[in-house]
């Protein structure tokens, strides 16, 4: 304040405004570039390194379809679909999560806290284990359940508008119910093994097949652009419904498009990889801290999510003596962060 009074100024030029904006854009681009590069590195490492290590040349050969002894099976059939799903599912969770957090103006309102992931997961577990359905039907099952749970939570918390805390508490309750439903389905399964169980409870990429990866890739290709077109409307809606409407945002319209697209992404990713713990929840706040305030977080958060899943899956497989499913690693990272965030939000009442 004293500095301001010492240097009184009344005007500012358009050039200064443009300069400040360019600095922020440059920072955002730099962050996006670095994150994307890190994902590529992590992806390549997780293809090369393992029980047997192959050179990047071998891996490239396999990707280009050449037949390389040993590598074709290990990299082509085992590691490639797994790492691809890690990247794609991470993108889905990251962008879906931050969309909810931005829309509901609360970092706790992410789909894995408020029951949407749990709903998709329970439906997928039910569809696979109890009904014995294939990948496409499972995805449809999961997305319908995810949307249903989203509507249910939204509907139950609606009373003269939706208040964030009420929605979150109701969501947490529903998530707990759905988790027990998943556990029940698993316990009733004829031959339920630990891998299946861990996939539907915390998320796992073990035994990923291309047939599971493809629907998620398609969902991302279709739904992520839809979310990106709503990016400006989402930013404006952070000012509150009234202020956003006054700026020409059709708030309800935006909300419906965004909920369907985000739930779709979360549900498709969950149907393939299970509800990878806390990725949707963590990505947005981490991205917000790296990018800085004011910028759209959709893309940075998607990249953070992707990097989290690829890295956590790699660590889970090889960093410890035992192979842990990816969700165990992200859960270990996520839970303390959740506590930190609640403590901090209580103090500052912050938004993301």
């Amino acid at each position: 304040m004293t500095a301001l009074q010492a240097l009184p100024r009344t005007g500012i030029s358009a050039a200064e405004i443009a300069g400040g904006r360019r600095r922020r854009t440059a920072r955002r681009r730099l962050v996006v570039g670095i994150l994307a590069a890190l994902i590529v590195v992590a992806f390549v490492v997780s293809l090369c390194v393992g029980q047997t290590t192959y050179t990047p040349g071998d891996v490239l050969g396999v990707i280009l379809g050449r037949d390389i002894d040993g590598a074709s099976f290990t990299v082509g059939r085992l590691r490639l679909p797994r790492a691809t799903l890690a990247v794609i599912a991470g993108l889905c969770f990251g962008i879906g999560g931050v969309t909810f957090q931005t829309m509901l103006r609360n970092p706790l309102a992410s789909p894995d806290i408020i029951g949407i992931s749990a709903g998709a997961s329970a439906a997928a577990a039910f569809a696979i284990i109890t009904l014995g359905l294939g990948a496409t039907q499972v995805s449809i099952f999961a997305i319908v359940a995810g949307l249903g749970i989203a509507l249910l939570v939204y509907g139950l918390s609606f009373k003269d508008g939706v208040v964030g805390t009420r929605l979150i508490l109701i969501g947490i309750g529903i998530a707990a119910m759905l988790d027990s439903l998943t556990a029940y389905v698993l316990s009733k399964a004829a031959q339920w093994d630990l891998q299946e169980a861990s996939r539907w409870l915390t998320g796992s990429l073990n035994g990923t097949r291309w047939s599971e990866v493809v629907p998620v890739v398609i969902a991302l290709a279709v739904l992520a652009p839809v979310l990106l077109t709503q990016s400006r409307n989402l930013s404006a809606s952070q000012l509150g419904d009234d202020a956003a409407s006054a700026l020409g945002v059709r708030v309800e319209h935006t909300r419906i498009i965004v909920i369907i697209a985000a739930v779709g992404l979360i549900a498709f990713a969950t149907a393939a990889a299970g509800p990878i713990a806390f990725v949707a929840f963590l990505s947005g706040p981490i991205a917000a801290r790296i990018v800085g305030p004011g910028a759209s977080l959709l893309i940075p958060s998607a990249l953070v999510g992707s990097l989290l899943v690829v890295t956590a899956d790699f660590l889970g497989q090889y960093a410890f003596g035992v192979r842990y499913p990816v969700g165990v690693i992200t859960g270990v990272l996520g839970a303390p962060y959740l506590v930190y965030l609640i403590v901090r939000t209580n103090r500052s009442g912050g938004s993301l």
Partner: protein
Amino acid sequence: MTTAHTLHAQNLTVGYGTRTVVQDLDLRVPMGGISVIVGANACGKSTLLRAMSRLLAPRGGQVILDGRAVHQTPAKELARTLGLLPQSPTAPEGITVADLVGRGRHPHQGLFSRWTPADDQAVADALTATETAALADRPVDELSGGQRQRVWIAMALAQQTDILLLDEPTTFLDVSHQLEVLDLLTDLNRSRGTTIVIVLHDLNLAARYADHLIALTDGQVHALGTPAEVLTEETIRAVFGLDSRVVVDPTSNKPLMLPLGRHHTTVER
């Protein structure tokens, strides 16, 4: 110019849930000046503003801007002519002043269209007009209440609308900051010709700053006119159920309302 517009509520009925707040209201908003809407709590002041700016769909009647119902006007198109600063907007955590004011450009930008020099100029003008230029790079959460309110007004200015509605822009401000905000709005009206409609609680400030005073009661326009025409002892009794004396304010020559309570009153009520 702003006087070329017309804003007109016809038989307007609006409500929330089962409650009807505004009933068959007719109002032609005077263009080019500062109109202040006053009335008791829950008389429909904010509801009227929200209906006029398309935030609430009417149950009956309509709001017509330039011959076209606002609820049939595309949202962005409307937001280029008519702006609203709601009662309690929220600033995203950590956002800087320049960024927040830039959000006011939303109705002027397409889906992916890039930021233009015109956008930068509008933000710079808005910051300059509200004397918040020195705060441009500061986070909004660190500002005082008065500064913050000026920043929100700057955001509404960056929207560059000919008509600007403000819902209780002086709430939570101390008296000097209240005057500061109203002076700023008067400057904008006089220099840019922006039509300004404000909901205010303080009758005396309303009388001082209004070119047109609009008194609402039970969702109806009770009186509309100059402050001297509207701020009378009879109107105050009808609108607020309050006994008062109205004198001429020696500092502004506007009417000044002195409320008569049950205590501390030395004249006959």
